[in-house]
């Protein structure tokens, strides 16, 4: 049969896109193609009236057949088209026009297109009998190549096919190279204008912008850069040298197309200077880890490097010093409390403990300051801190009376200041109980000293400290406690009345305080923590009835509670 040789040719061409079998040679590919098409054929067997010899012979010797076929196949186009051509040939014995629609079921328009291509290709295909003496070729004649109809349907959209040529640098299998060449030639011969169905424009194209692509490339290039490429990238450099040499030789030999091979050029990027892997931000605690390419997740050192920057301003450093001091004293206090046996804290009897207490008291009182004023200031600063107040409150029971008294006096002398500073904490109350106990052991003289601080006018202010004190709960409580104690002392010991100077001072102070209380609007008068019962009688003794009534009215608030 005439068509014997041609199917063989076509099959050979269809070799490249076979995905079956390990055989590489063209000839043996062909029978595999038969296997492939066999599965298609099974469906369409009914449609076929022609003979089908589905009996491939894989042991076929490709040999000379290959060479011949290839020569002639240069002009053949797409295998799918060729299959169609084959069909027309086969069915062309009668009327191809009728045959094809039956077989393929295509629309007239696409058929028309097919005819166009077929017309073009027909001179090539309808050639005289193929002088292949080899009998194996005859085998193929009986084969039927019926392409999948879907193949045709896909044809219009993918014609002409997108074909990315591998660069001349790529090493291809010789078979592959030959096949690609063939395809290339065929494409070149078919008119490039034949593009009625071009690729639909991809609406999602270029989601990755040029900038982004360049960025990725830049990152990859940076990773490739090296100071010494001859050492780092030895194989590529050698390969490129060989390639260049080969091209130079080719050019010398007269080869026309000298393609300039591109060389990989990595950008020269300045190596970053010594970087700070650990950054310290001012005012923050700890360190911030900066990730670099050398240390992407660097552990922060626990030990601080170098010196910490100087604290801004003396105020903050002062405050920190005070806080630090309080902490130290608290530790001492805890030791003392620990040493104390179970029971209420009291002035200790053991030698060691008294030493400890002494030490603590000195720490508090003097604060290692030589200047008395500064020492007092230090004490007040301690009292300004809530923890400092707690410290003093817990420490007082351990102190011997004289030391406790000194603290009390210091407190009363600076009571307005303390009151003002306590606005935020409102923690002075915790001092009341221990101070109260201390007050109850005061001597008259000491008491007077304490009260004096409150009644004396501070320089530069028209207001007596008492006024401020009365408005504060702790202040008023302390004041009442002092007065109460004074009254108690006086009532118990009539001899006190004899010592005129002290007693006069006392009466003056009582009167003054009473007057101040009377002056104070009821609303601003603070509510004392405890209201001693002997206050009113005290006032009765020293002030006139009217005032007493006023006082009573004001203090009645306290009575109720």
């Amino acid at each position, binding site marked *: 049969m005439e068509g014997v040789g041609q199917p063989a040719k076509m099959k050979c061409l269809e070799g490249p*896109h076979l*995905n*079956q079998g390990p055989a590489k040679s063209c000839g043996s590919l062909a029978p595999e193609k038969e*296997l*492939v098409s066999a*599965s298609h054929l099974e469906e369409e067997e009914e449609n076929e009236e022609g003979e089908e010899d589905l009996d491939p012979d894989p042991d076929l010797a490709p040999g000379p057949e290959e060479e011949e076929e290839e020569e002639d196949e240069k002009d053949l186009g797409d295998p*799918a088209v060729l299959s169609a051509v084959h069909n027309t040939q086969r069915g062309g014995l009668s009327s191809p026009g009728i045959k094809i629609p039956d077989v393929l079921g295509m629309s007239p328009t696409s058929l028309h297109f097919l005819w166009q291509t077929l017309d073009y290709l027909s001179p090539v295909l309808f050639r005289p009998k193929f002088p292949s003496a080899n009998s194996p070729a005859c085998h193929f004649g009986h084969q039927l190549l019926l392409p*999948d109809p*879907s*193949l045709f349907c*896909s*044809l219009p959209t*993918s*014609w002409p*096919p*997108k074909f*990315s040529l591998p*660069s001349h*640098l790529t090493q291809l299998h010789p078979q592959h190279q030959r096949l690609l060449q063939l395809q290339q030639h065929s494409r070149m011969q078919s008119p490039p204008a034949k593009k009625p169905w071009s690729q639909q424009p*991809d609406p*999602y*194209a*270029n*989601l*990755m912008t040029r900038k*982004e*692509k360049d960025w*990725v*490339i830049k*990152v*990859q*290039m940076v*990773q*490739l850069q090296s100071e010494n490429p001859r050492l780092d990238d030895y194989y*590529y450099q050698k*390969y*490129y040298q060989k390639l260049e040499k080969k091209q130079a030789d080719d050019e010398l030999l007269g080869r026309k197309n000298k393609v300039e*091979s*591109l*060389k*990989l050029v990595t950008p020269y990027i300045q190596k970053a200077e010594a970087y700070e892997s650990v950054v310290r931000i001012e005012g923050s605690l700890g360190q911030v880890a900066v990730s670099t390419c050398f240390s992407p997740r660097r552990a922060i050192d626990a030990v601080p490097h170098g010196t910490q920057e100087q604290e801004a301003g003396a105020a903050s450093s002062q405050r920190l010093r005070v806080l630090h001091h309080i902490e130290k004293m608290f530790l001492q206090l805890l030791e003392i409390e620990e040493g104390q046996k179970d029971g209420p804290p009291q002035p200790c009897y053991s030698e060691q403990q008294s030493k400890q207490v002494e030490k603590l008291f000195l720490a508090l009182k003097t604060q290692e300051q030589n200047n008395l004023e500064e020492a007092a200031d230090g004490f007040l600063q301690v009292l300004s801190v809530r923890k400092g107040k707690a410290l003093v409150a817990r420490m007082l029971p351990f102190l011997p009376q004289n030391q406790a008294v000194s603290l009390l006096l210091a407190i009363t002398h600076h009571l307005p200041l303390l009151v003002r500073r306590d606005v935020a904490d409102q923690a002075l109350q915790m001092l009341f109980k221990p101070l109260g106990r201390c007050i109850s052991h005061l001597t008259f003289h000491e008491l007077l000293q304490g009260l004096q601080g409150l009644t004396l006018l501070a320089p530069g202010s028209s207001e007596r400290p008492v006024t401020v004190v009365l408005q504060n709960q702790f202040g008023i409580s302390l004041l009442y406690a002092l007065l109460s104690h004074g009254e108690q002392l006086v009532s118990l010991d009539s001899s006190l009345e004899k010592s005129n100077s002290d007693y006069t001072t006392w009466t003056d102070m009582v009167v003054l305080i009473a007057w101040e209380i009377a002056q104070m609007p009821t609303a601003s008068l603070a509510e004392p923590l405890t209201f001693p019962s002997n206050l009113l009688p005290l006032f009765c003794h020293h002030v006139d009835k009217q005032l007493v009534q006023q006082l009573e009215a004001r203090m009645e608030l306290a009575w109720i509670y």
Partner: protein
Amino acid sequence: MNYMPGTASLIEDIDKKHLVLLRDGRTLIGFLRSIDQFANLVLHQTVERIHVGKKYGDIPRGIFVVRGENVVLLGEIDLEKESDTPLQQVSIEEILEEQRVEQQTRLEAEKLKVQALKDRGLSLPRADTLDEY
């Protein structure tokens, strides 16, 4: 290749249809839209293809973001040659059923094998105690 001669880069593959094989054995087919320096991939109009014997089934998956380390290989799909395959496409239900059957037969065969070895006093090391590479 014109970007970085002498190297392999995915830049040229963008907006083309690819077949991606993952480390867990899945096969994804989709348009490669975006990459980064780790070869993390963004696949568009992705389809997961399950192969059992000569049949395959496609499960449409939409957009995939694949971490680079999980890719075994990927290759460009030639669009016109794509349909020229001897494999037969079936429905999703069918292919999943086929897959299940295949899995089952494999497990049973494995069981028999293990039993046979046990009878002879041998034991295969467990997969989780083997090194992966």
